[in-house]
């Protein structure tokens, strides 16, 4: 439930249309062209939801994600810990009554840190996915819709970006801009949008030949209107699926950067940075609470997002087959 309701309403697209396309069509035609897709996706999405709901793994994943979000965002309200000041008396203390999951090397309560770190990981993951998908969708849709040399040019840029070894550039960027969560979001999104753009461009190439998009052109509707009002809403399935996978991938990239020591700076933390802190103590391996909780948190979150993404893809594809 945490994922799908947001894009279902697509309020951003509807309100955007009023500003963009008003006045370019006669009232009757606007009603026909404007209303039909607004109603249609809703019923398509409802049918998609039915397919989605049959997938038990995906439903379990949603429950798991709700629990993880609750743990990270509501947890600190219930389980109070000091995550700002180090407490060297408690350094590496074992799990017990006062610290349920023990403490780390600086005396931070590990359970509380897991919540705070998780918040950063989830926020960065979601925001990076959102930025990447938003930009990638618009870029790809406009490129595919305009076509011709402009499209070729824009797509060569995407090709170039995709041939760059992303992790190298992300590492360089993290070295240049001392990373804070906002920068991490942009750094991760600055790469992830490329794949989205290419995918949506491909989708647009088929969509723009459809009658309802052609019709907009014939009755004098502008390109912006066609893209925002017709192409993007019809590609929304692909976009949502992509966004779901993007969250998982962004969390993994952030974790990787944290491991390399290029993640968010203390006293803030994220799951990857927590892991990298604990790895120093791997040798003794008595400090399991430093390593396994953040590692398992990353894995469970990413698996859940992947399961949901898979189920969404099935849902949207079945919807297409039924139509």
């Amino acid at each position, binding site marked *: 439930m945490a994922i799908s309701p947001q894009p279902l309403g697509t309020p951003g697209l509807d309100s955007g249309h009023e500003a963009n396309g008003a006045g370019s069509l006669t009232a009757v035609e606007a009603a026909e062209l404007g209303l039909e897709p607004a109603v249609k996706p809703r019923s398509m999405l409802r049918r998609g939801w039915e397919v989605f709901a049959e997938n038990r793994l995906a439903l379990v994943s949603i429950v798991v994600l709700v629990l993880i979000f609750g743990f990270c965002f509501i947890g600190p309200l219930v389980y109070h810990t000091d995550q700002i000041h180090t407490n060297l008396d408690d350094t590496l203390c074992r799990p017990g009554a006062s610290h349920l999951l023990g403490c780390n090397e600086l005396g931070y309560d590990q359970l509380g840190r897991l919540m705070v770190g998780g918040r950063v990981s989830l926020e960065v993951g979601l925001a990076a996915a959102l930025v990447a998908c938003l930009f990638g969708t618009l870029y790809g849709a406009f490129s595919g819709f305009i076509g011709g040399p402009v499209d070729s040019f824009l797509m*060569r*840029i995407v*090709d*170039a*970006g*995709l*041939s*760059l*070894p*992303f*992790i*190298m*550039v992300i*590492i*360089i*960027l993290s*070295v*240049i801009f001392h990373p804070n969560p906002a920068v991490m979001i942009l750094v991760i999104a600055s790469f992830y949008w490329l794949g989205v753009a290419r995918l949506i461009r491909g989708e647009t190439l088929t969509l723009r030949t459809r009658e309802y998009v052609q019709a907009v052109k014939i009755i004098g509707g502008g390109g912006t209107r066609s893209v925002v009002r017709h192409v993007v809403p019809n590609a929304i399935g692909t976009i949502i699926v992509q966004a779901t996978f993007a969250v*998982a991938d962004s969390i*993994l990239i952030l*974790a*990787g950067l944290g*491991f*390399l*020591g*290029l993640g968010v700076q203390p006293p803030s933390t994220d799951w*990857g940075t927590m*892991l990298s802190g604990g*790895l120093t103590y*791997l*040798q003794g*391996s008595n400090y399991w609470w430093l*390593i396994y909780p953040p*590692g398992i948190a*990353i*894995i*469970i*979150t*990413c*698996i859940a997002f*992947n*399961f949901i993404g898979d189920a969404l893809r099935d849902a949207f594809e079945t919807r297409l087959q039924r139509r």
Partner: protein
Amino acid sequence: MTGYLIRRFLQMIIVLFFVTVFTMLLIHLFPGGPIRALLGPRATPEQVAHYNAVYGFNRPIYVQYGKWIWQLLHGNLGYSQKLNQNVSSLLAQDLPKTVVLVAIGTAVSLIVGIPLGVYQAVKRYTVGDYVLTGISFLGYATPTFFFSLILIEVFSIHLHLLPGSAPQGVTLGAVLSDPKALILPVVAFAFLGYALWSRFMRSSVMDNLVQDYVRTARAKGASEGRVLWGHVFRNSLISIVTLLGLSIPSLVAGAIFIEVVFNYPGMGLAFFNAAENVDYQVLLSFTVIATLATILGNLIADIGYAVLDPRVRYS
């Protein structure tokens, strides 16, 4: 075919142009420029200005770009002040080791992943399929470094079976002389690719199984084995070729993490050290080399695709 190749080649040149411009600009993003990054925060403005002049960083950016590309075309990758070594010699020393790691790891993942993917497609929705699907989802969701560290903890710290760090040695021969120490890095690398190949093969074979040519083959009386291995498998394999070309950036990413975890003396570790030391010449050159590998990989994959699938050639 020739026209197709020429077109692909021209596209490649354009892509290379964009990439080099981007990488060049990236290095200039260092606060205060590359020389400030090299000399550190305590260098005086005069020193920075002096070395900017020495290395030509005070010239217009297009002149710098031109000079850099000219040097690159002559095989001069620059000089690492931090390591006091030519980047070319650093590359000659580290690249083969990384290539060996990536090649063995990828080969293992393909050898394991492709048959298992076919198995999953044929026996879909059985217990075996679900278990393997679970494993590949785990492969997608586990950070490479975390998996590597679990391997180290289990196999080298607890069981004392395998060494926890990669073979140390400057030359490729030294690295290969200790194959036992290569096992864990290769396994870690292969797990990364396994998830990808097996998932892809599963869906690809499933897609192909419902195609018309399969029905034709069956109607002709071909055995199930012949239908699967003679028709479906070969067609599914074609798309793996493309995927292999596209996955080079991910392989590079995997190599960096695995080399850092296992202290494997390859390009990835050298790149990471260069990032920590802000050794911009190494960063610049290695990025371009990895990009070139990706572009060439994609080109080879595309050509391979055209060779294997006549439909691409004639369209």
